[in-house]
């Protein structure tokens, strides 16, 4: 099983990149697709219609979608295996950018739009830093110089990351991504673990209490003038 984990902010072009990946996979590849989102997503239906591949969708609701993705990943691998698929493509919801859904054995692909602002790579540092490839989309909307400046901004965060620039709707430049996917090995028998530690958000807001201000909550909380979060409670 080859595992591709695609993460990135909303509307950055993740699904457009996935379409191109599916279209350009080698003939013997049998992909399956899992979409994780919060309350609404249609990518699964679209990809099933377009390519006739098995798809699945998970809504995380009140739970952090990246945490949800981590929880269901094992089942998803078994699901793809039970259908005799050999490539599982997972698309993250792309919300807070603090979690990094990439695991050992997977190919981690961060998708960022070239028009998302020069400093955006710095803001999503962990999402980029633990990825194998950064795919920069919508490069047809910017000038060559801007493209090169954006690349420099990514390099500031991760000097050695493989950067692929594309207009994902047309698929230009994706030959380098496809080569990387082709060369990526199948997962071994070692247990799959996360590459980074996702932050914990254990407080009473997590369980639905709506009051504002730390005095109304227990768990990991933080007053404004305290440099670090503290634990409040038993």
């Amino acid at each position, binding site marked *: 099983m080859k595992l591709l984990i695609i993460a990135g902010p909303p509307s950055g072009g993740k699904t457009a990149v996935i379409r191109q990946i599916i279209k350009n996979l080698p003939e013997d590849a049998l992909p399956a697709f899992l979409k994780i989102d919060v309350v609404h997503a249609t990518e699964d239906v679209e990809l099933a219609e377009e390519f006739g591949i098995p798809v699945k969708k998970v809504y995380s609701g009140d739970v952090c979608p990246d945490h949800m993705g981590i929880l269901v990943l094992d089942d998803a691998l078994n699901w793809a295996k039970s259908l005799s698929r050999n490539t599982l493509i997972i698309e993250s919801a792309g919300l807070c950018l603090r979690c990094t859904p990439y695991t050992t054995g997977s190919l981690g692909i961060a998708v960022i739009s070239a028009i998302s602002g020069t400093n955006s790579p710095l803001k999503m540092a962990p999402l980029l830093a633990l990825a194998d490839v950064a795919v920069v989309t919508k490069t047809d909307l910017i*000038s060559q110089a*801007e493209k090169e400046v954006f690349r420099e901004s990514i390099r500031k965060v991760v000097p050695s990351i493989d950067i692929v620039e594309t207009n994902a709707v047309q698929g230009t430049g994706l030959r380098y991504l496809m080569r990387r996917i082709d060369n990526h090995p199948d997962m071994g028998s070692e247990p799959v673990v996360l590459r980074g530690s996702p932050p914990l958000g254990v407080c009473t807001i997590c369980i639905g209490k709506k009051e504002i201000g730390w005095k109304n909550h227990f768990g990991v909380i933080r007053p404004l003038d305290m440099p670090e979060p503290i634990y409040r409670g038993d």
Partner: protein
Amino acid sequence: MTQKSTIPEFTLTIQSGKNRFGEKEGFDCIVIRPGDTLSIVGPTGSGKSALINDIETLAQGDTVTGRYILINGEVPPESFVREPAFKPIALITQNTRCLADLSVEEFLIMHIRARRPGREYLLAETINLANTFTGEEISLKSRMSGLSGGQTRAFMIADALIIGDTPILLLDEIENAGIFKNRVMQSIQGGNKAVVLVTHDPYLALTADRRIVMRYGGVSSIIEPTGQEQDLVEDLALIDERLNKIREKIRLGTAFSSGSSEALMIAVGQGVTYK
């Protein structure tokens, strides 16, 4: 030329692909050498921008046209495509907006770092050159996203010439953002660069060494002027000059009461000429 180039010489070869109907293009290969100027002409949607994009991405049969682009007769190394520091090509796209949330100075410093670090001394030179192309002055403190269409275009051309400093320069319709195209052409030519420009401007199209004609997404023919167009070029130069004079007067607020001869007679007021 505003700077001495230390760049190596490159020969670029375009090998033909197919047009929208799958028919072979009207050439086998086009060889572009240092100092050459080529224009690309054709109706909108005929594949002009796609051709220069093929050149910029050094296509290897992997774009819709199926063209191959060679450098010095060989498949170029991947670094020429993927690493700005090795890329021998600068492209000025039609974009007249820059979305980078940076000041002009920060943008240039980052671009210098991407292309060839340690050349921060080029900042002033780049801005000064850009300001010769545009009527409204750009400063190092300007925000990139706040530049006008013409300023952005002028800036990007100056950036390509000075920071990029590449042996091959591709320009997509420089004439359409209201910048001083003749000054741009003067800066570009004579520096032993190979220049390929997409244009709808008759004078620019005809003064190129070769003219690539596009149709249905492919090259339909290549015209190499044999001197017979020279009279037309001279006529066009005069028409262009007259048009420029009238255009500048209009831009500076002149009102006209009769025919074009009068429009040309009125002197442009002192102190209102652009820098």
